[in-house]
């Protein structure tokens, strides 16, 4: 799930200078689950904007704005209220902001910072375990990603800063390579420790990335 967080209010205030009427868009997927841009948060944003003397011309929570066509369809369904606004405030990750920005001629104000692909420990507690590197070696590391969990992203770890199984950057953080070692040891496997993992081919992780699989699932 994409973890996002609302931008600080001071930053939003800068964006709101000269903007009197806004249309709000939220996201029913990731932003709802991490409580940054769901129906409740859109309502709270409306309250805050109103308290500033702004007018909210309308709002909609889209399922979900990263789908460009659905975003366009939902914008069309709210055409009148959108037209009345000076700007559209989008409470969704950057993908959602992009969809709205390219499907509307209105100025778009993104209200969130998109942070990481997160696992959910429990409500309100999110942890990055996968950084979408595109060249996954989880099958060799017991499901524990060194590219993500090692702050240096070492493919042949650990580094000399590991102390009692903890990371040099944060003594509360487990060393990723220690976690991998313990996981594989428990299963009696050597896997990643039997080879030198070569340097990453960064051609496989270019920006902007794209994938075309065709329309059917076959």
């Amino acid at each position, binding site marked *: 799930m994409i973890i996002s967080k609302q931008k600080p209010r001071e930053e939003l205030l800068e964006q709101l200078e000269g903007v009197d009427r806004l249309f709000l868009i939220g996201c029913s997927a990731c932003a709802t689950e991490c409580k940054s841009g769901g129906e409740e948060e859109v309502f709270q944003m409306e309250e805050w904007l109103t308290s500033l003397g702004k007018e909210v011309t309308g709002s909609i929570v889209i399922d979900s704005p990263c789908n460009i066509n659905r975003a366009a369809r939902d914008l069309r369904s709210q055409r009148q209220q959108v037209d009345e606004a000076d700007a559209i405030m989008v409470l969704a990750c950057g993908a959602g902001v992009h969809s709205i920005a390219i499907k509307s001629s209105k100025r778009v104000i993104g209200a969130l910072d998109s942070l990481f692909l997160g696992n959910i420990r429990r409500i309100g507690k999110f942890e990055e375990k996968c950084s979408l590197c595109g060249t996954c070696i989880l099958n060799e590391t017991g499901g524990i990603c060194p590219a993500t969990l090692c*702050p240096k992203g070492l493919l*042949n770890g*650990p*580094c000399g800063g590991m102390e009692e199984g903890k990371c040099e950057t944060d003594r509360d953080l487990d060393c990723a390579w220690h976690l991998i070692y313990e996981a594989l040891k428990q299963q009696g496997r050597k896997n990643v420790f039997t080879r*030198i993992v070569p340097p990453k081919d960064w051609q496989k992780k270019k920006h902007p990335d794209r994938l075309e699989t065709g329309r059917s699932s076959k």
Partner: protein
Amino acid sequence: MSRLRDQLASGQFVVTAEIAPPKGVGVKNIFETVSRMEGITAINVTDNQGANMRMSPVAVAALLVREGFEPVLQITCRDRNRMALQSELLGAAQFGIENLLLLSGDHPCFGDHPDTRPVFDLDSIHLLQVVDNLTKGRDMAGKPLSGDPPFFFPGAAAVPEAEPFDLMFQKFRKKVNSGTRFFQTQAVFNLEKLENFMAAARPLGVPVVAGVLLLKSARMCHFLNRNIPGVNVPPHLIERLEKASDPIEEGVAIARETVHVVRDLCSGVHLMTLGQEKRIPDILEKNRIEC
């Protein structure tokens, strides 16, 4: 040609020391320090040590070579991608720099530019392989190098006191298999652990130069334990410094005792004396024992 390599090959106990490049332009202090170092085989030049921005170590190492000293050029993977690393190494070779210490590098969070982008395009294993290829006349893309291949004597770091031992040692073995010709260790304090480590390391046939850090006060120990990755001063040594009437003398005594043990176990000692270079002969017991 590398005196470090020759001395290690002949079984002579080597002594290395280290200096940090300046944060600025002007190397007078460095040469004053270096000229005070007696009986040193080679001098490590650190690379943005502790992730604090300093002058390029290639520049300082090149100046050392020009003035007749032998450097060990430290190069980390923290600040340079694979292109910059190869580029720097070729430049270093042009200046006659041969000894290398190839490191992953301390994380930027420790230093004065914590907001920089950590590179780590390669790790120390990859960097060792890169050096191996360069010495055979090829770059990472497989392209042939022009002219004669550079000569390098590549070293890597070891952490004898790390736990769990097996996890640390598989990395050590990977470094050996990637062409490491000598190791320098982090500062050692636990001599029993050093003995265990050397028992496992010795059969792999790559000489180990043990790091010895001159402790100057109990406060320094606490600072090191808190802030410097890989350095772990045990409580009993901190206590000795706390109780000593002259902590620096006590620190010299501790270093001297450590070197004494290192002479039996390892191929050399790497001294980190942090401004107290004049105490090096004392630590090495140069006046008492023929080394």
